[in-house]
């Protein structure tokens, strides 16, 4: 038995050639490099821009978080002082608490609403494309214009909501000056903006469920509720997880809504101060770049914990990642 052919050969593998010389390999490598060069050049703008505007600032913010710097003078190294300050900073923990409360207040109703809307849009109704556009529209609306509208609607003394409530015989709520009012208003802005976005994703998921499953269930005599909970929800699980993940990312980095609604200070009692808004506040209104960077990395740690939890949730059952839809990344932030 001499020179037995390899048991498993790739079908497209070239016939084994006589052992190539060193010069051959180098030439081939050079040729391949030349062939691939246009491809590398074609994709380089992203990596160059990312290196300059993404990677460098990220790495530099690690350095800055160990320094005290006002943005123009000397950068002085202070070791872990910024982080020591951070763990005992009530304002930071208040911001963490606010962020999570607003996240829960917005994400839970938003995803339920989105599912309901998607379910309705999935029915055979007229003008479905129109509805889809209508529900998605808030997602592309200018945030500043939206903040003005919400500010007027929820205004304590002159707002539409309070006028309606007093007309109905209820007490007016200080939406923009009480701790819970502020959080609910911000959550309402988030819900208004992202429900349609999530509904569209759910709709795509609903449409990918084969109809023969429903037919079979109907033949077996399943009720509508059973169909929904035994077929729709289990098959939608990866998609629901996807929206939970994007909502978590968006919720943790919540900034624009409170900033345009309440200004850099986060409103009365800092009830609308989120982590990212606090970071912005420290870095760009207090010019404390060292502390701002430390907050950024604290947020990174919190986000990492959530990423791990999400990852566990998804990979735990095995069927998750494979079916994750290739939806556009959430553009919130």
């Amino acid at each position, binding site marked *: 038995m001499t020179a037995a052919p390899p048991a498993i050969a790739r079908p497209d593998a070239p016939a084994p050639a006589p052992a190539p010389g060193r010069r051959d390999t180098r030439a081939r490598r050079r040729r391949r490099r030349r062939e691939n060069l246009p491809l590398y050049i074609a994709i380089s703008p992203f990596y160059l821009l990312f290196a300059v505007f993404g990677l460098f*600032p990220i790495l530099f913010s690690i350095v800055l978080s160990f320094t005290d710097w006002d943005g123009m003078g000397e950068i002085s190294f202070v070791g872990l002082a910024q982080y020591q300050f951070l763990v005992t900073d009530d304002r930071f923990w208040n911001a963490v608490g606010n962020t999570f409360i607003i996240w829960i207040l917005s994400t839970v109703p938003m995803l339920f609403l989105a599912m309901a809307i998607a379910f309705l849009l999935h029915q055979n109704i007229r003008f479905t494309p129109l509805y889809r556009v209508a529900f998605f529209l808030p997602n592309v609306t200018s945030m500043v214009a939206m903040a003005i509208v919400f500010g007027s609607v929820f205004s304590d003394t002159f707002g539409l909501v309070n006028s309606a409530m007093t007309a109905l015989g209820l007490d007016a709520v200080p939406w923009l000056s009480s701790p819970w009012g502020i959080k609910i208003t911000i959550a309402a802005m988030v819900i208004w903006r992202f429900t349609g976005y999530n509904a569209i994703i759910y709709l795509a998921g609903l449409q990918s469920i084969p109809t023969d499953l429903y037919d079979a269930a109907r033949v077996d005599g399943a009720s509508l509720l059973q169909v929904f909970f035994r077929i729709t929800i289990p098959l939608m699980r990866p998609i629901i997880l996807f929206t939970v993940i994007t909502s978590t990312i968006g919720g943790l980095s919540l900034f624009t809504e409170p900033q345009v609604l309440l200004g850099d200070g986060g409103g009365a009692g800092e009830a609308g101060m989120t982590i990212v808004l606090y970071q912005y506040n420290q870095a*760009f209104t207090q010019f404390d770049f060292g502390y701002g960077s430390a907050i*950024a990395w604290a947020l990174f740690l919190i986000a990492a914990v959530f990423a791990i939890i999400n990852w566990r949730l998804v990979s735990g059952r095995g069927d998750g990642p494979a079916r994750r839809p290739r939806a556009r990344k959430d553009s919130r932030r």
Partner: protein
Amino acid sequence: MLGAAGLMPLAAAGCGSPETISEDPSELVMWYWNRSASPELLDQASSAIPGTDKHVRADVIGTNFDTKLRTSLAGKAYIPDITYINSNNALYFTNEDLFLDLDELGADAVKSDFYEWKWELGITPKGRFCFFPLDIGPTGFFYRQDVFEDAGLPSSPEDVSAAITTWEDWIALGAELKDSAGSFLVNDAQNIFEGYLNSSPERYFDTDDNALYLEDGSAVRRAWDVTITAIEAGLTAKIPRDRGTDQNAAWSSGRTAGNIGAAWWTQILAESAPDTEGSWRIASQPVRAGNNGGSFAALPHTCKDPEAALAFLTWINSPSNQALAYEDVQLFPSTPDSFTDLSYSGTFFGDQDPLDFFSTAAETVPTSFISAWETMIGGSFTFEIANVETTGKDPDQAWADALSQAERVLTKRGVEV
């Protein structure tokens, strides 16, 4: 990562980027923001600064002015030759070496043209004169004459001024206003706290970094007490300033009938509450007028031609040119002589002349010192004032929290108090 934005200049440092913006040796680049200089005068300076062979290229820097200026200074690249700086010039005291001492260039020669207190605000703790006076913001008590009249209160500017010579009298007047007209004296408590401090010769620190606010009976504490009294009497409408729409609605409807405002507020008010034309008047605020706002100009250490740059600053801020700038973009002059050339013709304040009022008020503004540290801790106090006002926090607890927060921030920034 948002915190990392704006740190790019370090990459540019040392990479051979030019320090100044323009390569033309006869062109001085100036940074300013909209309506901080008269376009007509800038146009003249763009051909030549009078008395020199240099000219000015004025670039409007939009939002985040301070961040952009810091960025260029930190990166040591593309630094303007002349820069305007807002009333937060104290933010730059810790890096005053980045700016030229204008006295060394002979700025003294025009010192007597300006209100002395404004000139003093441009002097750093080390005694260097780095910040040249532009406009000012003398303050007064704006009020709705119609609401005051209906409430049976004094209503002419003279009578109101006479009735509120002390803060206690002012609060008493506010209580009467509340009782008989149901209107608030001001929109938010911060307006009182800052209105008090802005008219006080003493603020948070002195030039030797002594923490005056910690002493018994300090101006900060007195401002705090007056503000708390007003909050407890229910004289504030609890509408913070970041909700401008609500504030305007309150003033337009008469729900709030007053405001301690600076000269520049006359125009804002006329634009935001046009329906109230003729209803507003301005009275002297308790004790004496203060100053709120007003900008400065500085020459970064890289300035191509400091003499010509200073010549530009003295020219554009001469009494006659400041009068022109007032007519052009309503910058309130920092030179008393400007007012001889000016007259007011509007009717928003009825027969009252706000120009006359504020130029008189400007004479009484005290000389004070705003410390760089104040810019770091002032927010702790206004934050706690807002807590007392809107969430009903216990004032003693709020004061203690403001002090401890201030101390923490100062310690972190390396300031011993």
